[in-house]
């Protein structure tokens, strides 16, 4: 992640300003490789290390509200802090200790979600 700079606040801004293909290339090619791998796995009936059938449980597609609201809220944060969860860990590890602040804040955000969950529309 860090070598392709997806952890960079600058690159995230560049992405939201539609100024470079880079971030779209990263995400797009990642999706493509992910999709093809899964197709190959299914086609060849490959098993995992322990011999079990590999399967991805589908997401809960029966509701939409949580994805709309959660998605929007996440997006707001993503553009503000220039990092999604992976990059928060990666940047913290790279020595940018200031990023521990948004990381801890994110964990607190997750906790508050757990608290408010029964009252939120899903």
């Amino acid at each position, binding site marked *: 992640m860090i070598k392709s700079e997806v952890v960079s606040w600058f690159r995230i801004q560049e992405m939201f300003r539609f100024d470079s293909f880079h971030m779209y290339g990263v995400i797009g090619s990642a999706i493509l490789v992910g999709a093809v791998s899964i197709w190959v796995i299914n086609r060849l009936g490959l098993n995992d290390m322990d011999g079990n059938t590999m399967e991805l449980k589908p*997401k809960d597609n029966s509701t939409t509200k949580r994805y709309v609201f959660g998605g929007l809220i996440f997006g707001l944060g993503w553009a503000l802090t220039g990092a999604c969860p992976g990059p928060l860990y990666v940047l913290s590890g790279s020595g940018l200790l200031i990023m521990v602040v948004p990381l801890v804040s994110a964990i607190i955000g997750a906790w508050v979600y757990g608290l408010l969950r029964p009252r939120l529309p899903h």
Partner: protein
Amino acid sequence: MFDILRQPWPWYVGGPLIGLMVPLLLYIGNQSFGVSSSFRHLCSATVPAGLEYFDYNWKKHKWNIWLVAGMIIGGFLGGYVFGNPEPIRLATDARQQLSALGIHDFNGLIPRGLFNWHNLLTVKGFMVMVIGGFLVGFGARYAGGCTSGHAITGMATFQKASLISVIGFFIGGLIVTYFLLPVILN
């Protein structure tokens, strides 16, 4: 040889490598690639507070904690040991627009002029660091996934839930970029 490790990588190298996390995690432990669930596990392991959302056996998801520990190490190797000493090569328009908002230091991956300990108690700093982080954590768990779980894994498996989430991510990001950031940074 170390130069290759220090230089930034093009999208067609980084992207596929990230994409390979999907089959890799499936192969190693039949797990779905996702990062934001680590927040849930960390909360469950430390302060479950009797909340139903954290009432489960987080230990069964230890692989996820290893995953994010690996990311921290990866960050150390890629960003510190083999860090890129050059300033980031941003597209001109983006650089100009950001400069107009008061960002001038493009050395490194994040704007140090904005992200630093001194700024933490200013409105600017608090918004991008504390509020931004909070919204990422809250939003990701509300949506049940972040860019890795929804944008990559979910989209790779054509999940409607993930498409909706990704659209949400983008609209949220655009709102901040075009409406909030100019206000906050000025």
